[in-house]
């Protein structure tokens, strides 16, 4: 085990995969000479050369589509899109093409493509640069969407994504790049499509992914001191979605809150709430609650931005309301 940042885990994994497999190539804006907007690809141009670490012009539709075509011929392109907001320039290529080809062409071709891209707000980047659009891709059959929360999962899931033969949107988050965690030194191959109970608990389940998991764990630790036992489920993968792990947790805890950075309507929380009411209805003591971003183009000014984005305080408030509504007492959990 080595303690490292999420950024370092991504960098080291890209480097390991470039070394392991010659068909792996990196493409993106400013990933070479500039070393990446968030420095994930620092040093890789020098080590692997401009054919394998390829700077692209500002042409998301063009270079994402080109990566799809290269993947059709057996390359394994890993594309960095500077932020998920810019992926909209390439959405036709991803949704209408990459996601369709394997099924639509009768299984004759696959598209082993990874799109790495950070989402999320909170950096005063204002409305156009602060979105969480991962659900747009998670909605689409044929896509895989993963959203690791920890450096260890970043390593395991990026490795899995690169070796997977389907298009994978790999969601990063600006606020996670500097977070630290233990990462195994040996090769790790994550399981796309599986969630994890990252903190066991009795009284209430918090379901989240990406940055939200970090907040959920903080809150769980804090509430532990107040005698509340929170179970945290990290979805890790939005498509496929591991509904069973969520339902199993809620069947045990009887209370569920979803925390997401995204806007509320039509989001991950909506999907989880619908799943839980179907898969754990009789176990629920109260309706599932969602903590999600205010539905407004995110303003620049700090007080407005802060008010719009879900925080630990918001999660604590909703957990409190849910516990109160179900007349939670500290003795409830027994043990």
């Amino acid at each position, binding site marked *: 085990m080595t303690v490292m940042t999420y950024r370092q885990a991504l960098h080291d994994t890209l480097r390991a995969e470039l070394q392991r497999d010659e068909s792996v190539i990196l493409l993106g804006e400013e990933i070479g000479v500039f070393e990446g907007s968030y420095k994930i690809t620092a040093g890789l141009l020098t080590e692997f050369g401009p054919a394998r670490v390829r700077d692209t012009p500002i*042409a998301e539709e063009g270079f994402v589509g080109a990566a799809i075509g290269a993947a*059709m011929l057996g390359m394994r392109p890993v594309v960095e899109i500077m932020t998920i907001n810019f992926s909209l320039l390439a959405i036709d290529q991803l949704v209408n093409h990459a996601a369709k080809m394997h099924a639509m062409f*009768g299984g004759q*071709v696959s598209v082993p493509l990874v799109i790495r891209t950070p989402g999320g707000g909170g950096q005063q980047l204002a409305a156009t640069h602060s979105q969480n659009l991962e659900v747009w891709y998670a909605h689409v059959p044929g896509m895989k969407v993963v959203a690791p929360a920890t450096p260890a999962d970043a390593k395991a899931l990026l490795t899995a994504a690169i070796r997977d033969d389907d298009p994978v949107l790999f969601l990063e988050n600006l606020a996670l790049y500097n977070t630290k965690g233990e990462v195994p030194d040996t090769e790790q191959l994550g399981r796309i499509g599986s969630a994890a109970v990252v903190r066991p608990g009795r009284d209430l389940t918090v379901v989240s992914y990406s940055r939200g998991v970090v907040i959920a764990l903080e809150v769980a630790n804090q509430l532990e001191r107040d005698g509340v036992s929170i179970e945290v489920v990290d979805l890790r993968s939005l498509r496929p979605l591991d509904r069973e792990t969520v339902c199993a947790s809620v069947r045990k805890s009887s209370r569920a809150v979803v925390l997401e950075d995204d806007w509320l309507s039509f989001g991950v929380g909506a999907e989880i709430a619908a799943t839980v009411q*179907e898969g754990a209805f009789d176990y629920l003591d109260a309706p599932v609650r969602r903590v999600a971003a205010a539905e407004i183009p995110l303003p620049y000014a700090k007080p407005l931005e802060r008010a719009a984005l879900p925080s630990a305080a918001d999660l604590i408030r909703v957990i409190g309301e849910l516990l109160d509504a179900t007349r939670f007492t500290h003795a409830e959990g027994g043990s």
Partner: protein
Amino acid sequence: MTVERESTSTSVVDPGPTWGEYYRQMSLIRAFELRAAEMYQRAKIGGYCHLNLGEEATVVGLMAALEPRDYLFTTYREHGYALARGLEPGPVMAELFGKTTGVSGGRGGSMHLFDRKVRLLGGYGIVGGQIPPATGAALALTYRGEPGPNAEAVMCLLGDGTTNIGAFHESLNLAALWHLPIVYVIVNNGLGMGTPVDRSAAEPDLYKRGCSYRITGERVDGDDVIAVRDAANAALTRARAEREPGLLETVSNRLRGHSVVDPAKYRSKQEAERLRALDPVHAVRARLIAEQVLDEDTARRIDEEAEARVDAAVAFADASPDPDPATLFQHAYATAVPNAPHRLPADPVVPVPELLP
């Protein structure tokens, strides 16, 4: 509007076996497309169905230039290309019928023909969707081998209307910057659905639209099968040997509407008659007979043979099995993963738990 057809080369009829073969392919495409229209009217074919009627000389000329080792990306108007690339009419018709024996297993339909072995990497239903992937396929080739006369190349077809989309320009820029072995072919039939070229392109000389990317553009008469072949050959040769992308514009006519269901009412009666008189299949046939390359009997035999092959294709498609709904999720993913959703519309999202006691 009539698009200029000044060509970089003019053809002479050479009496070798080539012409017979070219006419054979043109005749087959004509017979296939007329039958596809008929099968559509008889509801054997669903969805959209776009035909190559009027484009036969272009199809055959382009495919004559393409080597088996090359890759082809096409638009949704691609039945003829699949045939000229060497696919049997049966599996192509079966795809239109949505049968398991179709080239895409019945999953793609008319707009999405795909065949790995002849390196037909797809018909594409979204206008211009094929252009960035084709460009990327050419990028992949640069990792495989060195440039040279025997190198592989990519041909990417697109329509005249497609030269207005961003993906076209982004792709040409990438291909020129990265020196990719690809030839983009603008099949200009004068109309994007019902909109003439000069009402949609500020530079209606479409072959000039590569200028911004220093890509050589050429225009040929799309009704001249030899001129098309030779121009495509020249562009492919540059792409192989020098890794310089090319842009070729072929000018032909669409003899019918945009798709089978379009009556083309935006065309005057006179225009429709003028186009019929220019029919490239009839023109080539008459010319070959006049110049004694084929005699009337041989030409008739070729036409009858084409009809017979299409008869057999329809019989094959008709007799082929429909896909079994149990195979719905067969190609959901190339790499299996846990929790992939395999539910039908009325199925629960998770197994419904037993009621609490």
